[in-house]
């Protein structure tokens, strides 16, 4: 408890006073719970924008000639479509999949689950959020600058992204805004990662050993380590790209580039260098998006199976192994880039190896369910959906991890289907599971259960209807990032499948309104939540809903056992919270 040492060595504080002004309390708050909700609401705004962009893309793919009221010129152009592709990917990956699970739920629940009064550095935490917010303003602003949003995809490959507007509309101001946004985001995430790591190491309650931490905390901790090592690299790459564009440097630009018959004054750089730097960040980013979801899935599966997590240690080690191997597989995005084929093979074997801890997690999730007493509450439904989607999306990666097979599937919709299932939809299911699970704790009210279930059925069936057929489109040669398939003969027969996916996407998208309604309605009108509505065991359920400003009202919990002690033989109740002293546990009569 090093952080307490300089305040006099005491582990007990007087209850903290809440700031009274609106701005200090809700806007520039240093309370990790308020900041967590701010991150969550930012992600919620971003996901609405991201989904609307994807609906427009799906619409264009099926009805390219339709007149749209809000599109200049009436019909969507190729570059407008590519701008949607770029912005959808960027907003979803950074501002939803990174922001909600880690910035949102991690911020809110990591300190409480380890028994801490706040993050280690509350002001740094506030700074992280507001820099992220600034990054979000920058990315949205890219739509409104001259030339519009960038068209180089969320991967921003140079030279397309490095030469300015000569390579295409949106590559002027729009691309600059994109780089500024990503760089700010990286900076904010670096600060956040430091804070998460310091908090987990230093502020754990007495008795909260590493192997008693909830698996959610393991997920957030390893995610923070990944963020610390990955975001710095993308930040550096972003700055170099900015210099290439505006200061005449040539980090990523080789000699002899000729665009529109105009020779470009660059020499000595390498486009592959950008890819290496980008994917050195980009692959760990996949795990940044999914590891917190894995933690939530484990947590929720255990709670609603009324059983301890099967193989807790194996699960914690698997999270660490995924994090470790996650830094050694980035080259599988570059098999066909011109990188050495020998490197490609090495990356391939390492990528196949990362399937092992993922499989271990899946087996242990099934092991957790096995012999349980499963209660099908809405968080549980989404956690079960997470497992199914993670399996489906993860397995298709075994094809893409092999460079030979990648010759057939690279850059097709097969890849789009793969990563949407595994890091998109599965991660979103993790977020939904977390939302339904923790909403009572965060807001002190219950969400409406029938509406939540309706939301689950539509979203689960809808997600598979969108992304399963997408594998077949890719296998049949459907190429991603094509605004118009008409130039290529073999794409015509895939159009009916695109229509099916578009209709499924519209229905699934519309079903998200059920969630939004439930969320905001329950905020105001949901029935009051008790301290522990799910009969769960971890520390957040031992305090009020919502928790007081210092989380435990001046009292700090001590921890006496692991996080998932459900259905312990001989105990009166089927759950034993982590903070109950062994002598106090009621025995069954």
């Amino acid at each position: 408890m090093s952080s307490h040492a300089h305040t006099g060595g005491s582990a007990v504080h007087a209850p903290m006073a809440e700031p009274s002004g609106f701005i200090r309390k809700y806007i520039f708050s240093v309370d990790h719970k308020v900041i967590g909700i701010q991150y969550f609401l930012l992600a919620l705004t971003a996901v609405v924008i991201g989904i609307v962009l994807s609906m427009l893309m799906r619409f264009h793919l099926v009805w390219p000639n339709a007149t749209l009221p809000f599109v200049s010129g009436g019909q969507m152009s190729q570059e407008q479509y590519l701008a949607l592709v770029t912005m959808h990917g960027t907003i979803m990956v950074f501002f939803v999949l990174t922001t909600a699970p880690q910035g949102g739920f991690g911020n809110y629940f990591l300190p409480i689950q380890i028994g801490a009064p706040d993050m280690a550095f509350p002001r740094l935490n506030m700074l992280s959020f507001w820099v992220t917010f600034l990054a979000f303003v920058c990315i949205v602003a890219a739509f409104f600058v001259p030339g519009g949003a960038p068209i180089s995809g969320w991967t921003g490959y140079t030279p397309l992204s490095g030469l300015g507007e000569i390579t295409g509309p949106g590559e002027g101001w729009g691309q600059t805004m994109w780089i500024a946004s990503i760089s700010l985001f990286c900076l904010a995430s670096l600060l956040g990662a430091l804070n998460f790591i310091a908090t987990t190491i230093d502020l754990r309650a007495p008795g909260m050993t590493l192997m008693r931490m909830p698996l959610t905390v393991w997920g957030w901790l390893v995610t923070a380590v990944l963020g610390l090592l990955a975001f710095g690299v993308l930040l550096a790459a972003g700055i170099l790209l900015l210099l290439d564009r505006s200061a005449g440097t040539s980090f990523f630009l080789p000699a002899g580039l000729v665009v529109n018959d105009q020779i470009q004054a660059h020499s000595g750089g390498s486009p592959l260098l950008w890819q290496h730097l980008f994917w050195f960040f980009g692959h760990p980013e996949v795990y940044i998006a999914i590891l917190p979801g894995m933690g939530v899935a484990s947590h929720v599966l255990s709670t609603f199976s009324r059983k301890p997590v099967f193989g807790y240690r194996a699960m914690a080690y698997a999270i660490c192994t995924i994090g470790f191997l996650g830094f050694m597989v980035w080259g599988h995005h570059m098999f066909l880039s011109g990188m050495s084929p020998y490197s490609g093979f090495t990356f391939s074997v390492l990528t196949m190896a990362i399937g092992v801890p993922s499989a271990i997690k899946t087996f242990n999730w099934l092991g957790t369910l096995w012999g349980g007493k499963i209660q099908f509450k809405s968080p549980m439904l989404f956690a079960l959906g997470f497992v199914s989607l993670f399996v489906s999306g993860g397995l298709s990666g075994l094809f893409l991890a092999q460079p030979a097979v990648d010759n057939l599937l690279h850059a097709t919709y097969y890849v789009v289907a793969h990563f949407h299932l595994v890091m998109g939809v599965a991660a979103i299911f993790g977020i939904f599971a977390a939302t339904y699970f923790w909403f009572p704790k965060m807001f002190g009210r219950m969400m409406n259960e029938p509406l939540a279930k309706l939301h689950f059925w539509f979203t689960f069936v809808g997600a598979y209807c969108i992304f399963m057929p997408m594998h077949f489109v890719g296998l049949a040669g459907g190429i991603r990032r094509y605004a118009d398939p008409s130039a290529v003969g073999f794409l015509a027969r895939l159009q009916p499948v695109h229509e099916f996916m578009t209709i499924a996407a519209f229905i699934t998208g519309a079903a998200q309104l059920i969630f939004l309604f439930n969320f905001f309605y329950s905020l105001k009108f949901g029935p009051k939540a008790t301290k522990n509505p799910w009969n769960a065991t971890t520390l957040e359920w031992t305090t009020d809903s919502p928790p007081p400003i210092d989380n435990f009202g001046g009292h700090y919990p001590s921890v006496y056992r692991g996080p998932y002690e459900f259905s312990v033989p001989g105990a009166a109740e089927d759950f034993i919270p982590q903070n109950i002293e062994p002598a106090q546990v009621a025995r069954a009569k």
Partner: protein
Amino acid sequence: MRIRKRASGSAATPAVLSLLLVILVAVTVYVFASGAYAPPPAITSVGHAIDHQYDLTLAVVATVFILSQLGLAFAIFRFRDHGQKAHYTRGNNTMEVVWTTATVILFVGLGLMGRKAWAEMRFTEAAPGAIPVEVTENQFVFNFRYPGPDGKFGRLDAKQISASTGNPLGIDQNDAAGKDDIVVPTLTVPVNHEVQLMIRSQDVIHNFFVRELRLQQDATPGMVVPLHFTADTIGQYEIVCTQLCGLGHSRMHSYLNVVSDADYAAFLKQQEAAAQ
């Protein structure tokens, strides 16, 4: 409490969820097995090796997919809350060791087996005597250059690039070797002869992809990437760009013509006459 009891005691939710998972498995397996969306037949021996590796992977993936989704469906229905007591266990180390070892062998083994096809296409150079063709891509066209009767490519000079005056590649006008170079917008090769492509780009990253060759390669500026193949079936195949290259990306398109030896000789003769 009446509501809570109904929610946790009902078998409807687990039954529907299990059924959905079974349907998912059935439909997915059916569509894969039907081959309705299979890629076109390969026209190279490497292509067949890739297909073999694909089939092997599919067998492994299908097995794991079916077992885990059906296992999930079974657990959901079988262990639904119907008043029983949960079985308290923290895990089983033997099982952890068994399934870890099994997946290491299965997944890493599969990856190692994939080396064969990859090595055949990428670890080796084209044999001497392969027909050299330079592939140059720019926004949003393919150009294919043959060395002409002298067997030598002319030097390239970026300053002389001018699509409007008919020198899109910037072949140096002062280099005699370039005088007879043939530049065409489609790729024509003789059947059963090895071809050595040299893939390059003038501006941004493009790609060269022919599905029937099972061959895909980025064209990255600043690099010349060699790629070799021997097509064994006469026909016309589509060449596409799969790397996002700008607003005309989806229009970037060409053809690979695999022709008989006689037709190839005629093609060269005709092009050489045109180049004079």
